[in-house]
């Protein structure tokens, strides 16, 4: 520091006058060179960084990295190059006020102050030093490493680069690969792994007896081409992206058309859609003809409980976007970008500004449904139009059976009101205003799910719809659950409790519709819940008035001529002939069926894929507090990692997301390819090469085989290795005639599962266990328990009940329930509807299946890139005693009786073949035969479905 002692600046004289320094300023005007690395950085590191560094950023300031230091903190620029006097840093370290002065405890010496001042004066140069971005392994470009030369060639299997990497590391540790597994084990492993199902006894026999040298490769091809591959691997992806089909939080309402995203993932995987395209579509599918893909963005929880409280509203929005930011970072980049919400990332080079740059990328995305354009769109619209015409005709016939309302009648000629549907027929009357006044309800605040007003004429149309220009007002609206009950839902053309109006007063309230123009009307139709789930809140005493001027009103219908309300009373109009009555019943059913078809058709066009709108302004938030806005932040990508990319400040919402997607999928990005090949490896072997699959940052795990990871990443993006497909007809990739297209996941799968490493035995040996108990070095194939989904699928598969229908809305394992806070009561009865693969279970957030949830199923509250595997007595109880398992044990027994006939020996053999893909030993045969003789075949089936051999894969 000697040299520095001579550095002085006139500008600094006030600093010294503060009495902090020991040495008087010298009058020199020639600033001597200050060396940042030697003089400045150590000073900052010693005196400032403990409060203004990676750990803490007091005042939002960080002084350990150039970008942050030059940006400054909450109160302004810390450093203005060339202008020490304008630099807050200098003001702070020289302040006279002890409360203001920095560092708070030990003030800097005059010499130190002069050093900093001189450095700023000289332009505050912060030469590139080695940062984490320069040093950390995963932030370096992927370089294709040379393939290690094998020291112990294995003749039995064709050379596979994966084996070369694995064997090299094994031999360094005095270990080696085991011989190939027997074919029975291999086919069971492969099919569970690729398709999530056990092999049939016939498949096993064919494979075991195949003479073809390429029999295994052919099997791999067959399974990779199977549509069940997409179903199996979509589950892994959906875990990593926290996909669920309900909102979470208090109400946890279902998202009935969120399944489109699941179907999209399954289909994309089956098509072997290039991974870069898969990523781009999930971030910006709306620009790429893949609307459902953006279900990714809004796959997380969403709090639908809204409030006039602005702080709550701001926090809710911030949390929504936080979820999108965090999931995008973890899923595609293996980075915990979400950690930079309140301050710069503690470990990785991600600044708070980077976080808000990401936030601005998603600032146009909101939770909700969106019309999705599919190939089937036009056909669907035509179909809907056809159904609507049919419906209108049927309703006309139906209405004709309904007696006219007579507001002055004294006898009760009409039926009592019912929750589903009530029709008011009257002589045509001109109306501009229609008012429905409730005086009494069956319970609580009255509810109307839809108020329809029909124009008189041969083709009656509902003129009350908001889309026809009608407007609604009311006496008051129910304050809770506005996403289910609001005035707008009174005339939105959608039925059911979830789209209804409720009054704010118990037993009373009114609504009024102002039609677009005065219209001759002759019918009004209303209900409390046309879907029939709700029977409460029904208006039981009411009056309907019409007016053309809102001054004079006339009553056109009321409850006075209806039979008094009684729960469960017949809805069939009084006074019908037998024939009319039959026609009424038939029409009612036809109309209900048609309505359901229409709903299904309409629902097919909407998907929970996010509402996309103009981006709202994004601000950096002080300590992440949604109420403490700082400067406006433009959309951006991470500034210190990956390729450089600038997103224009005024970019549109789709352009922002498309730009981010482009950046993530740049072949030069160091993370994207590494992260996805690691995910594939993880699911093939149970553990990733990096054991923290969604965190490749400094706080993540180091790779067990870094060269192999890079080789795989490189092979994904620039494939150079021939695809060992036996009979494929895919076009050759750019790497040569046998190489696949870039970013092909199936290519990586094929490389992995055809390796000797994958095919080796899972038997343990003392040497391996002693050196590497967790088998991370892969001296054996690590055996493991199958997850909840393949376990349930396997149970259904062997019982013969599995329905392999693909796609579409899922099946529900919970009883229907329409409370505004949805109550999830597990079903206790199961039929064919529930016998589909578990990937198609309607997956509510935070609610696990009663039987299989205990097998470490993720709850989709947060991302689950890696599942736990725990073993509990509750799992045992579920598999032993649940209704589902007992039912399947019964089906399994029936199936075996059918397959094997009455001979108990043959039955036992069939049970073993189906469940374990092998014959029983003599001892097993004897014991099993006794069990069947004593207690029936279902007892054996129940035992076998609980066996370790059934739930583990070697």
């Amino acid at each position, binding site marked *: 520091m000697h040299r520095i002692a001579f550095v002085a600046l006139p500008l600094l004289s006030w600093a010294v006058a503060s009495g902090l320094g020991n040495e008087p300023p010298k009058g020199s005007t020639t600033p001597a060179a200050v060396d940042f690395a030697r003089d400045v950085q150590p000073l900052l590191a010693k005196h400032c960084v403990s409060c203004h560094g990676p750990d803490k950023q007091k005042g939002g300031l960080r002084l350990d990295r150039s970008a942050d230091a030059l940006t400054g903190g909450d109160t302004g620029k810390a450093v203005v190059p060339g202008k020490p006097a304008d630099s807050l840093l200098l003001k702070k370290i020289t302040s006279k006020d002890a409360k203001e002065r920095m560092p708070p405890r030990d003030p800097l010496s005059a010499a130190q102050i002069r050093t900093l001042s001189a450095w700023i004066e000289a332009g505050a140069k912060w030469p590139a030093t080695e940062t984490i971005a320069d040093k950390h392994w995963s932030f370096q470009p992927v370089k294709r490493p040379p393939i290690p030369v094998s020291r112990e060639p294995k003749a039995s299997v064709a050379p596979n680069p994966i084996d070369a990497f694995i064997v090299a590391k094994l031999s360094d540790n005095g270990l080696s690969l085991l011989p190939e597994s027997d074919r029975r084990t291999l086919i069971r492993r492969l099919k569970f792994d690729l398709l999530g199902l056990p092999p049939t006894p016939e498949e096993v026999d064919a494979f075991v007896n195949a003479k073809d040298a390429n029999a295994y490769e052919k099997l791999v091809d067959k399974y990779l081409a199977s549509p069940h591959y997409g179903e199996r691997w979509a589950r892994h992806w959906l875990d990593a992206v*926290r996909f669920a089909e309900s909102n979470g*939080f*208090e*109400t946890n309402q279902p998202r009935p058309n969120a399944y489109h995203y699941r179907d999209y993932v399954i289909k994309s995987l089956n098509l072997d859609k290039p991974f870069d395209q898969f990523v781009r579509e999930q971030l910006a599918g709306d620009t790429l003809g893949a609307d459902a893909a953006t279900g990714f963005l809004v796959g997380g*929880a969403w*709090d639908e*409980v809204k*409030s*006039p409280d*602005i702080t*709550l509203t701001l926090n809710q929005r911030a949390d929504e976007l936080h*979820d999108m930011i965090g999931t995008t970072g*973890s899923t595609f980049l293996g*980075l*915990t970008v979400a*950690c930079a919400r309140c301050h710069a990332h503690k*470990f990785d080079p991600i600044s708070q500004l980077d976080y808000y740059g990401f936030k601005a990328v998603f600032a146009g995305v909101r939770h909700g449904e969106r019309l999705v354009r599919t190939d089937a769109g036009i056909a669907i619209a035509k179909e809907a139009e056809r159904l609507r015409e049919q419906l209108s005709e049927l309703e006309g016939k139906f209405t004709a059976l309904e007696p006219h309302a007579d507001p002055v009648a004294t006898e009760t000629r009409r039926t009592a009101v019912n929750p589903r549907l009530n029709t008011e027929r009257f002589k045509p009357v001109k109306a501009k205003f229609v008012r429905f006044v409730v005086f009494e309800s069956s319970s609580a605040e009255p509810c109307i799910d839809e108020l329809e007003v029909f124009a008189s004429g041969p083709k009656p149309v509902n003129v009350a719809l908001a889309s026809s220009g009608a407007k609604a007002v009311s006496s008051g609206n129910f*304050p*809770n659950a506005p996403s289910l009950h609001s005035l707008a839902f009174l005339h939105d053309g959608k039925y059911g409790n979830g789209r209804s109006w409720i009054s704010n007063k118990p037993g009373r309230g009114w609504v009024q519709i102002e039609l677009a123009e005065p219209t001759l009307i002759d019918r009004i139709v209303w209900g409390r819940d046309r879907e029939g789930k709700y029977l409460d809140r029904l208006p039981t005493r009411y009056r309907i008035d019409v007016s053309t001027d809102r001054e004079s009103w006339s009553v056109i219908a009321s409850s006075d001529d209806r039979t008094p309300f009684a729960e469960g009373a017949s809805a069939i109009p009084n006074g019908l002939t037998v024939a009319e009555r039959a026609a009424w019943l038939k029409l009612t059913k036809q109309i209900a069926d048609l309505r359901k078809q229409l709903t299904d058709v309409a629902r097919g066009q909407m998907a929970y894929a996010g509402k996309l709108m103009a981006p709202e302004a994004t601000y950096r938030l002080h300590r992440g507090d949604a109420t403490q806005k700082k400067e406006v932040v433009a959309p951006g990508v991470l500034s210190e990692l990956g390729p450089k990319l600038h997103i224009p400040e005024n970019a549109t919402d789709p352009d922002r997301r498309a730009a981010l997607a482009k950046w993530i999928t740049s072949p030069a990005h160091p993370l994207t390819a590494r992260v996805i090949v690691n995910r594939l490896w993880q699911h093939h072997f149970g553990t990733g090469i990096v054991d*923290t699959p969604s965190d490749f940052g400094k*706080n993540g*795990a*180091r790779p067990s085989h870094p060269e192999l990871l890079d080789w795989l990443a490189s092979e994904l993006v620039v494939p150079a290795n021939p695809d060992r497909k036996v009979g494929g007809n895919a076009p050759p990739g750019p790497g040569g005639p046998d190489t696949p297209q870039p970013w092909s996941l199936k290519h990586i799968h094929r490389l992995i599962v055809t390796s000797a490493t994958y095919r080796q035995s899972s038997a*343990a040996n003392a040497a391996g*266990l002693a050196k590497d108990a967790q088998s991370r070095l892969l001296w054996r194939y690590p*055996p493991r328990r199958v997850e909840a989904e393949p376990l349930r699928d396997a149970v259904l598969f062997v019982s013969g009940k599995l329905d392999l229908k693909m796609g579409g809305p899922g099946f529900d394992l919970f009883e229907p329930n329409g*409370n505004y*806070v949805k*109550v999830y009561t597990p079903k206790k009865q199961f039929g064919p509807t529930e016998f589909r693969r578990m990937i198609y279970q309607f997956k509510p957030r*935070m609610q696990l299946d009663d039987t299989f949830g*205990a097998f*470490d199923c993720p*709850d989709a*509250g*947060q*991302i689950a*890139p890696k599942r*736990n595997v*725990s*073993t*509990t*007595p*509750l*799992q*045992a*109880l579920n598999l*032993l*005693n649940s*209704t589902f398992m*007992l039912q399947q044990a019964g089906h399994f027994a029936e199936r075996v009786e059918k397959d094997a006939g009455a001979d108990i020996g043959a039955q036992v053999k069939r049970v073993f073949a189906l469940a374990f893909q092998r014959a029983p030993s003599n001892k*097993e045969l004897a014991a099993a035969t006794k069990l069947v003789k004593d*207690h*029936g075949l279902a*007892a*054996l089936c129940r*035992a*076998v479905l609980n*066996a370790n*051999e059934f739930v*583990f894969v070697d």
Partner: protein
Amino acid sequence: MLTSRRDFLAYASTGLGGIALTALLAEQGLLANDKIPLRPDIRPDSPLIARKPHFAPKAKRVLAVFCSGAVSHVDTFDHKPELVKRDGQPLPGGEKLVTFQGAQGNLVKPLWAFKPRGQSGKMVSDLLPNLATLADEMCFVHSMTAKSNTHGPGENQMSTGFTLDGFPSTGAWVSYALGSENRDLPAFVAIPDPRGVPQVGPNNWGSAFLPGVFQGTPFTADKPLANLNRPASISEKTDADTRDFLKFLNDDHAKTRASDSQLSARIASYEMAAKMQLRAAEVADLSKEPRAIHDAYGTGDKDKWKSGFARNCLLARRLLERDVRFVQLFNGSYAMGEGVGNWDGHKTLKSQYETHAAILDRPLAALLTDLKRTGLLKDTLVVWVTEFGRMPTFQKGASGRDHNPKGFTVWLAGAGVKRAHSYGATDEFGYQAAEKIATIYDLHATILHILGLNHERLSFYHNGIERRLTDVHGEVLEGVLA
């Protein structure tokens, strides 16, 4: 207490992530020894085996009573003479205040009179007359604050420390840290209200990213543990022979795979399941309890909600007696109409609270008394919570109080905490915490502390972060410790 790096490495579950992190932190000197993450050593074959705490504990187990819906502190435990005096006047500064449901009416005095109770003379309202008699046992925290004013996130935060979905519950953290003293019953039992599950349902007792073995097992006195019992269609003999055969299959299978602890763990889990079938049935069988106990709890009350909750309280005592580590007892369910299923008294607080208090008061008082009588209170920590408080005003145009996360009351009792003590205070109206402001993080830190756990060290690596129950916050409320 384990402090050295070597001890830590031996103790921590191995995983490259953990080691890398520790090494990194040590390298940067970022962590003092007392902040190094401590991950319990979970043995896959016996994940629930009892584990030592970080330091000598004051309590061995916890009873957490959760009143769902947000109990009004100003009508129960937080006595505010000024609120009585200013009844009917506006809350100063309240004109522009927008709370969860909107605008405020005037200040409204407690709807039940407060009276001095016990030897301490602690003022408690008449709403809960039986609990009030136990005021000398309680340590009140009157200065609680919550992060959210909405039930979902609020209930999440009280049970998991985070307002978002998907974080491990307090009970899951505790069973992860300490395992179980009882191998035949779950380590953590959640007892939902007879009316239904609380507002965020299983997120109150979920394990989230902790291994599933640590999640709470929900059952009540009237709804036994799911799938516990042998189905009626299967005879005892069939069941026994089937399970013997299963054991034979599994043993045979394991012979050639002798080193695999996953297999032996699963075999052991079936043996534990058999024991649990006996013990869980026994614990839920209240018939052997003496008449006087049934009467004290009110299990025979004609009102099914009252008697149902009373049976749950009695079940809670029986679980604690059998050394279940963490029992979470709910009073109040999901919303089934405003203020119907739980303590959410927005519009007609008086009548709603009379209903709920009548369900809560007698059985819970009997449970506390019973814990004291049996000596369980000596090493059991009781924590009574609700997700947030309510406003000292009525809502505009209504006769109830809106949500208020700025100040509310919880109380603790039993092992490790002061008796007849009040910690912290709200302002003169009970609107905002004003003295010794406490957060839910602080409450959680305190619970862990009493169990001998350092909340800054008990952690689990998930997606890039050493997660803690208390996130990066929390200070033990020294003032409540005995």
